[in-house]
């Protein structure tokens, strides 16, 4: 559905993205991750034909976004960052206007506008001025607009930014449901969201693709796959040194809470050190109140990938 080849974009001497290559297949939900300024918005704007690329090619549904931009745009529902809207229009009026711009046949306009209002929960504000809407509703108007012409592909730039937890949950559900019929490329900072919704993830940093895989594979790939937390009273023992002797433990950090030692262990991927830790605690007569394994999250992947780059 999306095909990107050697895409490069330079702004006045600065390279925003360099040599991007990726493909998004029909029906995939692709997450697009990266720190601020990594080039996510730039890439999305190029795909939406809003910005030209300096070199390289990109196509949507087989149409080049630059040469056949009009056809490419007809297949695309795009929701820009911060959702700019005409403040002086009413919600229904705006959606009708957008429907006409997107060449939805006259007889289907009211049906489609009604459908997206229903889908995005806009019924209660349909006659309000856009200027008077809260951030969450503006976001939904943007999403409704992107969905109007039933595009094959949705590109959503930070669809959940600025929403409260309930709204985030609603939008996430909505995106998941949309993924059944549409291909989706979405950028976000909220990593748990990506883990829950996306079938594949691209991590981009400083204009380069650092990783492109399924969330599960990404988690498996990183070295610090997870950790174990032990909370115990260890008496006079030097707990960190003893814990480090256990095979698989890479690092131990300690802190204290109310006389209890909180020991965080970083471990090699694919090893479970909990039985060993338990045995040690039993042998040394430590009083244990918690022993838990923490699963690695995409956040760990993200931090590791984007930080290792900074170090080099």
């Amino acid at each position: 559905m999306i095909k990107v080849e050697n895409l490069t974009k330079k702004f006045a001497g600065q390279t925003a993205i360099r040599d991007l290559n990726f493909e998004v297949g029909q029906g995939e939900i692709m997450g697009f991750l990266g720190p601020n300024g990594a080039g996510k918005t730039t890439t999305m704007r190029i795909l939406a034909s809003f910005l030209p690329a300096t070199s390289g090619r990109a196509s949507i549904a087989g149409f080049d976004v630059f040469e056949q931009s009009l056809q490419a745009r007809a297949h695309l529902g795009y929701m820009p960052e911060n959702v700019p809207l005409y403040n002086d229009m009413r919600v229904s009026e705006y959606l009708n206007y957008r429907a006409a711009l997107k060449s939805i046949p006259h007889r289907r306009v009211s049906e489609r506008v009604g459908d997206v209002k229903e889908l995005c929960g806009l019924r209660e504000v349909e006659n309000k001025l856009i200027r008077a809407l809260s951030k969450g509703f503006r976001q939904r108007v943007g999403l409704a607009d992107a969905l109007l012409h039933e595009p094959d592909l949705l590109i959503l730039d930070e669809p959940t930014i600025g929403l409260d937890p309930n709204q985030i949950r609603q939008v996430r559900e909505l995106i998941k449901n949309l993924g059944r019929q549409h291909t989706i490329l979405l950028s976000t900072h909220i990593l748990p969201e990506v883990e829950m919704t996306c079938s594949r993830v691209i991590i981009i940093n400083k204009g380069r693709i650092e990783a492109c895989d399924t969330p599960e594979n990404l988690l498996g790939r990183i070295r610090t796959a997870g950790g174990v937390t032990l909370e115990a009273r260890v008496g006079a023992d030097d707990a960190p040194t003893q814990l480090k002797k256990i095979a698989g433990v890479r690092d131990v950090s300690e802190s204290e809470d109310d006389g209890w030692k909180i020991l965080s262990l970083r471990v090699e991927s694919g090893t479970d050190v909990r039985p060993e830790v338990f045995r040690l605690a039993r042998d040394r007569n430590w009083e244990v109140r918690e022993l838990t394994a923490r699963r690695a999250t995409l956040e760990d992947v993200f931090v590791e990938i984007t930080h290792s780059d900074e170090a080099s």
Partner: protein
Amino acid sequence: MRKFYTLLSREVSSYFYSPIAYIVLFFFLFVSGADFYFQISFMNQRPVQYSVQEAFFNSIFFWFAFVLIFPLITMRSFAEEFKLGTIEPLMTAPVRDWQVVLAKFFGAVIFYVVLWVPTLLYFAIFQYVTHQTAAGSFGAYWGSYLMLLLLGMFYISIGCFASVLTRNQIIAAVISFCAITLHFFSGLITFIVTEISSTMRQVLGYFSALEQMATLSRGEIDTRPIVLYVSLTMVMLGLTYQAFQTRKWKL
């Protein structure tokens, strides 16, 4: 065509959603109404060689108001979309650049025409009160309003061009105000610089909006200003289109 019509109706209605429209309408009707009143009072005192209609369209008062309205009408057309970022959803919808440029231009032209409609009432009221015709001939109406439309289209195209260059409405207004006044007052050179040859005077006269208005408001329909302003408008719209496309340049 439907997309163009959709864009156009959005443009026209956006004028009437904003307070600027009503302020411009009020200001313009106030100034032109005062002008009309003073012209008639003046004519009431002694016999003159021209019609009410000629006097109205050729007074300094009138022209002062005239050059001022264009920056006010056109400054927001593109600049506001750039500033609010609404240009992004607009241009990522399947619309062509020229559709947007023409919609913005004709939207402003329609608002400008609406601005002029009430002035027809002045002449109607004059006729009703005095039982005399305000103009020398029917052609004089055609001529004056045709000239207003032609010059208006040209100045609106200058305003659109200024607006596409920046995201700041004030800067757009200043650029278009300077360009429009410069063009307009270049027609006055012959009044200021007296020591020029008659050929030069004639050449400058072709470009003088004041002289063209004087001719047309007498009811003489001259085709030269028609060709001049239609082609100048097309040039400015071409430049606007090119400037609008710069965002697509591969730098």
